[in-house]
């Protein structure tokens, strides 16, 4: 049985939060954000996105994922059923954790983008050793 999240792709939305170089509509990829001991893991569904067309930026605590996705079918295709649209992806997050931005890595497999955001040294839990007085 599927979980309660919707299985239907939400409709495209207009870019309202900030100006982008490519105008028009974009889709908001579904994400999971997991916190591990030493890193944050951001997993985003970006089916159909090409490795070279994905742009990931991390600047001043804002993580931005965007991808240009060209239509896979000609504009004039007459669909018998058209339940989802195809287009650019865009999403941005405020990351409150301190992140070591130099060591951020990303991988793409089967339309799933996984970002590893290593926590910066300061916010990593540190075990404090207690010196024994001999």
């Amino acid at each position, binding site marked *: 049985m599927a979980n309660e999240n919707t299985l239907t792709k939400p409709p495209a939305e207009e870019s309202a939060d900030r100006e982008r170089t490519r105008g028009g509509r974009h889709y908001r990829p579904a994400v999971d954000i997991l916190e591990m001991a030493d890193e944050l893991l951001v997993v985003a569904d970006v089916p159909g996105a090409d490795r070279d067309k994905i742009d990931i930026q991390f600047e001043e605590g804002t993580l931005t994922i965007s991808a240009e996705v060209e239509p896979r079918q000609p504009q004039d295709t*007459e669909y018998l*059923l*058209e339940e989802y649209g195809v287009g650019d992806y865009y999403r941005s997050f405020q990351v409150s954790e301190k992140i070591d931005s130099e060591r951020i890595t990303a991988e793409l497999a089967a339309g799933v983008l996984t970002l590893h955001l290593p926590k910066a040294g300061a916010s990593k839990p540190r075990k404090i050793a207690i010196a024994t007085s001999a």
Partner: protein
Amino acid sequence: MVFQCVNTRHPLNQFRDEMDRLLSGVAEYTATSAGLWPRISRGQHAVNLWEDGDTLNVELEVPGLSSDQVEISVVSGELTIGLNRPNNKEEGVLFHRRERWFGQVKRVLRLPFDVDADRVAAELNDGILKITLPKAESAKPRKIAVASAS
């Protein structure tokens, strides 16, 4: 064209889809009768469907799925697509957001014409599943010659 007979947006077809959804919900209820409430799925997995000459194309977005997590069958004019996206995240991990779906979903589509089941093909690329269903010979339009009695 003013009226398209295969347009699934037609109210009658919408009604039929709703009924299908309702009935599949009943089937799900019997399958998971251990629960207190009937488990009718909130949404169906979205598909795009279009004709391309003598081929029917079905496309779904299935990010993260491998080919063994997809099951496709064509039986008596219906295409059934089963998807299984496991929830393989380890226990004890703190989720700040959890939006990606997981679990098993099934989508049944009534085909608008007979297809050549032996030549149905499917491919999985970058999280996009595309199924191509060639029209059966019997479903192709045939020109009937009229014999003239001269």
